[in-house]
């Protein structure tokens, strides 16, 4: 489904990702974990070619993007296969929830307008937001906006959904509704790659975890084991540091 080979990304002169190799199987959930600034989001963005690779290649569902040879056609092919959910939702502010979900279907010519709107309504109902379909993003809570954003991503029936810290911008009490929506997609075996700091969530829904630090993959393997906090090495220090915060008075 996804194959990343010898991928390096430099932003300006700074190497952000170094020689990344990774495979994601169809129907699985992969969680990228690691400290802030480690390159997780850059790796996720590279899978959608929002970030151009400096070296190596990214393959999504058979479409290969090789550094230095990335045409508009390749970008279109990769993006046809993947859809992204952003930390800040990034909904189109001038469109209602329904119009947001229908927009890619209409503007890409995937469906006629009426069929696109019907599909959008169905997907909004799937994420539990049928009743706010005609509201504008500004009138929705953060959690609702993020679920609309997830609906927009799944409406185009991508082969893989990429989620960049989908709950980081939410108030704590709104996080769970979004996590439940993502878990429901995982139960349908939709391929997903997500960047998250929600360790318990990642442990429960991810098949594979990838620990990234300083632009390198330091560890990867089954999520339940890798994120248990019992593994030797740096990852356990990281996982345990997230879960055991003690503040001295």
């Amino acid at each position, binding site marked *: 489904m996804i194959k990343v080979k010898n991928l390096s990304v430099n932003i300006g002169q700074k190497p952000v990702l170094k020689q990344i190799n990774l495979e994601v199987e169809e129907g699985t*959930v992969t969680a990228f974990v690691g400290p802030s600034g480690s390159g997780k989001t850059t790796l996720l963005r590279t899978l*959608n070619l*929002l970030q151009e690779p400096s070296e190596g290649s990214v393959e999504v569902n058979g479409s290969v993007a090789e550094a230095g040879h990335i045409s508009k056609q390749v970008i*279109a092919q990769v*993006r*046809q296969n*993947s*859809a*992204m959910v*952003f930390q*800040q939702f*990034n*909904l*189109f*502010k*001038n*469109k*209602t929830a329904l119009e947001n979900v229908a*927009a*890619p279907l209409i*503007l*890409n010519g995937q469906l006629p307008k009426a069929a696109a709107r019907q599909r959008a309504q169905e997907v909004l109902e799937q994420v*539990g*937001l049928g*009743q*706010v379909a005609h*509201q*504008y993003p*500004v*009138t*929705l*809570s953060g*959690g*609702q906006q993020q679920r609309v*954003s997830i609906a*927009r*991503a799944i409406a*185009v029936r991508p082969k893989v959904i*990429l989620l960049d810290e989908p709950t980081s911008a939410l108030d*704590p*009490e*709104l*996080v*769970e*509704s979004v*996590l*439940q929506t*993502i*878990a429901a997609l*995982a*139960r349908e075996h939709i391929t997903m790659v997500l960047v998250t700091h929600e360790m*318990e*969530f990642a442990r*429960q*829904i991810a098949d594979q975890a990838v620990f990234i630090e300083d632009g390198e993959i330091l560890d990867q393997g089954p999520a339940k084991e890798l994120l248990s906090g019992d593994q030797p090495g740096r990852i356990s220090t990281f996982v345990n540091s997230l879960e055991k915060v003690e503040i001295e008075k």
Partner: protein
Amino acid sequence: MNFDFSYFLSLFAQLIPYVPITLLMAVVSMVLAIVLGMVLTSFELTKVTPLRWFARFYISLFRGMPTLVQLFIIYYGLPQIFPVFRGIPALVAAIVGLGFKQSSYLAEIFRAAIGSVDDGQIEAGQSLNIKRSKLFFHVVLPQATVNALPATGNTFVSLIKETSLAFALGLTELFADGKMLAGDSFKYFETYLAVGVIYWIIIIIYTWLQSILENALQKPYRRVAHVVDQSEKPVREHRTETSFETN
């Protein structure tokens, strides 16, 4: 106080027939300014360096010179250098001069309005494989229009008042007629006050119309009663016990 109130009132009947010419100049100049402003903005945002330079030069030039000087250059100066402009009607010269001048302001307003639409929405659209041109027309432009409206309205308000400069080209519009009436009657205060009041009323009416338009266009961006559905009831205290198991 020697204020002739009945003369003041009688002036309106003589001045109002010149309102249409004032409005015609303002509206046509504004349309010209909007079209030119959009072209200049597209030049400013392009990657083609000579076009960017041209836009910057144009904006700098037309913002940097007094309006009256520009009108004189067009009406009196151009025919001297280019005979083809000889006999250009004063109305056309005024419209072109005012349109060119205001386009330089509008280009900056439009550029800022486009820049104020956050990049995240463009990025989200791109990630969904929507073409940039379609994103521009369906996502960026509608939002930029709303953002640009107040400042564009201010430009139009200035333009309505600047049409009074056309009297200097010999065009009889609202202010020029007032000037003649004042000269005839020597009642300068009453006459210029009546002229000022008419401009003021025009601008009040326009401002009211603009506020209606702004209200209509701002509907998507207005926060109304917040809707929180049942699935978003606070769950913080249960987070550690929540199960997300997939099988």
